[in-house]
C-alpha cells in the first residue's frame, strides 16, 4: 500500500496527460512545456548526482546532452528516414516505434562514455580545477560537432520530425510525450535507488570526507567513474529527447549557457535533494515560459510610463539577465536552495505514510 501510492499516482498522471494530449484537450504549446519540464527534470536530477551528492563542481553538463542528442538523432535519421547525407532508410520506418527508446539508450551510453573524459581527471583533481576541466570538456564536444560537416556542423542537424511522423504513422498517439514522461520517471526512480543504496552512498561519503572514504574501503576512483558516467549518460538521454521535441538541433544550443541553466536548477533545488531537483526543474521551466509573456507586457508598461526610450524594445534577450540574477540572489539569500539537502518527506513528515522517499 505504502509502496504503491506514488507509482500509481505517476501512472495516473501520465495516463491523463497523454490522453488529454491525444484528444487535443491541451494544445501543442502546453504539451511542449510539459516535455521541456521532463527534460529539465532529467537534466537537473542527473546533474545533482555529481554536483549535489558527490559535491564536485562540474559545469559542463550540456556537453553530454549534446553527445546524446546527436547520437540519437543521427541514429534515428539514418535508420528510419531517407536523408540526403545518410542515404535511404536502413530499416523499415515502421520499426521506429519499437526502436526509438533503444536509440535513446544508445545516445545515453555514448554520453556516458564521453563522461569518462571528465571522470578520469577527477581522480586527481577537485574543486576549481575540475570545474575548468568540465568547461573545457563542454567546449571540446561542441567544437568537435561544429567541425563535423557531415552532420551539419555549425548549421545544425535536422530530420528528427520525420522520425516522429514515422512513429505517428504506425500508431497515432503522442509518442514523444509518452517517452519523455517514461524516461523522466525512470530517471528519478533509478537515481533514488542509487543514492539510497549503500553502494551509492559511497559518493556522499566522498563529498563529506574523501580521505575517510578511501581509507574505509570505498574505491573512490570507481565511485567517481560511476557517478560521472551515470550523470552524463542520463544527460545524454535528456539530449536525445530534447532533439526530438524540437526536431532540430544546433551545437550552440548545448553551450555554456545551457550548462548554466543546469547549474541554476541544481542550486535552486538544493544540492543533494532529489525532490528539490524535480521541484526546481518544474519551477524553472514555468519561470522561463512565463518570461515569454511577462517581458512583452513589461515592455508595454515601461513604454507607457515613458521609462524606456521609444526606439528600445525589451526583448527576450533579457532572459539571460534574469537567469543569472536569480543565481546571484539565490547565492546571497538562500545558498542551500529550496530544499537544502532534505527531501520532501523531511519537510512534510506526513508524506512518509504514502511513500518512503529515501
Amino acid at each position, binding site marked *: 500500500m505504502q509502496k504503491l501510492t506514488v507509482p500509481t499516482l505517476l501512472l495516473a498522471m501520465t495516463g491523463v496527460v497523454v490522453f488529454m494530449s491525444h484528444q487535443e484537450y491541451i494544445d501543442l504549446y502546453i504539451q511542449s512545456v510539459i516535455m521541456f519540464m521532463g527534460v529539465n527534470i532529467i537534466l537537473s536530477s542527473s546533474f545533482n548526482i555529481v554536483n549535489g551528492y558527490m559535491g564536485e563542481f562540474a559545469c559542463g553538463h550540456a556537453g553530454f546532452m549534446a553527445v546524446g542528442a546527436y547520437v540519437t538523432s543521427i541514429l534515428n535519421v539514418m535508420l528510419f528516414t531517407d536523408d540526403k547525407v545518410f542515404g535511404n532508410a536502413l530499416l523499415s520506418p515502421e520499426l521506429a516505434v519499437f526502436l526509438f527508446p533503444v536509440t535513446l539508450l544508445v545516445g545515453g551510453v555514448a554520453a556516458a562514455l564521453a563522461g569518462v573524459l571528465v571522470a578520469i581527471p577527477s581522480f586527481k583533481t577537485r574543486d576549481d580545477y575540475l570545474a575548468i576541466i568540465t568547461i573545457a570538456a563542454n567546449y571540446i564536444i561542441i567544437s568537435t560537432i561544429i567541425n563535423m560537416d557531415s552532420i551539419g556542423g555549425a548549421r545544425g542537424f535536422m530530420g528528427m520530425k520525420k522520425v516522429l511522423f514515422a512513429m505517428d504513422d504506425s500508431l497515432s498517439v503522442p509518442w514523444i510525450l509518452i517517452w519523455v514522461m517514461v524516461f523522466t520517471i525512470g530517471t528519478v526512480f*533509478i537515481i533514488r*535507488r*542509487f543514492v539510497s*543504496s*549503500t*553502494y*551509492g*552512498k*559511497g559518493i*556522499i*561519503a566522498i563529498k*563529506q*570526507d574523501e*580521505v*575517510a*572514504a*578511501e*581509507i*574505509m*574501503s*570505498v*574505491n*573512490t*576512483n570507481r565511485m567517481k567513474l*560511476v557517478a560521472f558516467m551515470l550523470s552524463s549518460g542520463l544527460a545524454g538521454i535528456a539530449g536525445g529527447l530534447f532533439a526530438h521535441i524540437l526536431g532540430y538541433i544546433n551545437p550552440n544550443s548545448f553551450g555554456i549557457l545551457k550548462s548554466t541553466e543546469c547549474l541554476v536548477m541544481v542550486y535552486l533545488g538544493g544540492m543533494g535533494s532529489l525532490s528539490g531537483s524535480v521541484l526546481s526543474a518544474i519551477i524553472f521551466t514555468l519561470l522561463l515560459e512565463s518570461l515569454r509573456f511577462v517581458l512583452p507586457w513589461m515592455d508595454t508598461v515601461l513604454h507607457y510610463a515613458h521609462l524606456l526610450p521609444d526606439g528600445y524594445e525589451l526583448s527576450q534577450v533579457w532572459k539571460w539577465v534574469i537567469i543569472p540574477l536569480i543565481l546571484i540572489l539565490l547565492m546571497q539569500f538562500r545558498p542551500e536552495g529550496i530544499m537544502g*539537502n532534505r527531501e520532501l518527506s523531511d519537510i512534510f513528515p506526513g508524506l512518509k505514510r504514502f511513500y518512503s522517499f529515501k
Partner: protein
Amino acid sequence: MSLLQITNMSKTFGGLRAVSDFSISLEGQELIALIGPNGAGKTTVFNMVSGFYSPTEGSLVFKGKNLAGLKPHQVTALGIARTFQNIRLWHDMTVLENIQISQHYNLGYNLLDAFLRSGRYMKNEKRLTDRGYEILEALDLKAFALEKPKNLPYGLQRRVEIARALSINPSLLLLDEPAAGLNSADVKDLIKLIKWIHGEFKIAIWMIEHQMDVVMSLCSWIKVIDFGVTIAEGTPEQIQKNPDVIKAYLGDENI
C-alpha cells in the same frame, strides 16, 4: 610468519627525509606505540602503512602480501583499519550509515542490483544493517545509531570512529592519537576501551600517542622516532629511562 613486516622503509619529500630506515615486525596481537616529538614523522609512517604514500625505499609486507602499489581501499580490504588524529567521520550521515558505507569492500552486490533492488541487493543490505548494529551494540553505541556524528560529544565521536574502523574486521588497527582533544574522564574511558578491544577482538593495535599515561598503561612495546630516525625502542620502563628519548623530548642539558 609475522603479521606485518616493515623493512628499512624510507620516505623523502623533495629534499626532506621524513622517515628513514624504519623497520618493525608485528606478530599478531601486540599493543605497541610509536611516539616522538611533533613533526617526527609518525603520521607519515601510518600514511605509508595505510597506502596513502608509497615508500621511497624499503618494503611493507602484510600477511605475506607486499603492500607496494596498493591503494588505501585495497590495503583496508586486506585488514588494516585506521583512525585519524582529527576525527574523520562522515558527519552528515547517521552513525549506522557510517558503519554501513565502510563495508564497501564487501558489498556483495553491484550497481545493477541496486537499480533493480534484486534479491541479492535486499539480502546484502540487510546483512550490512545487521553488521552495523552488531558492532554498535558491542561498543555500547547502539542508542546513537540514528544520530549524526556531528551532534555527538567529542568523546563519543572518537568511539564511533573506532567502531567504524573495527567494522571492517581488521587484523591490525592503527590509532592516530586517539586521546587527542579528550578530557581526562574520556581518556580513562578510552584506555578501558582499547584494553577491552585488544582482549575481545584479539587483534594487533598500533598507536601514535602523545599522552604518556595512555602509552605507558597500555603498550608493551614502544618505538621512538625523531626527525624520521628511530632513536629508541623497548618496554615502557626502558623508554622512560632512555637518555636519547629524554633529550629528544626535553632538549640537551649542555647547550
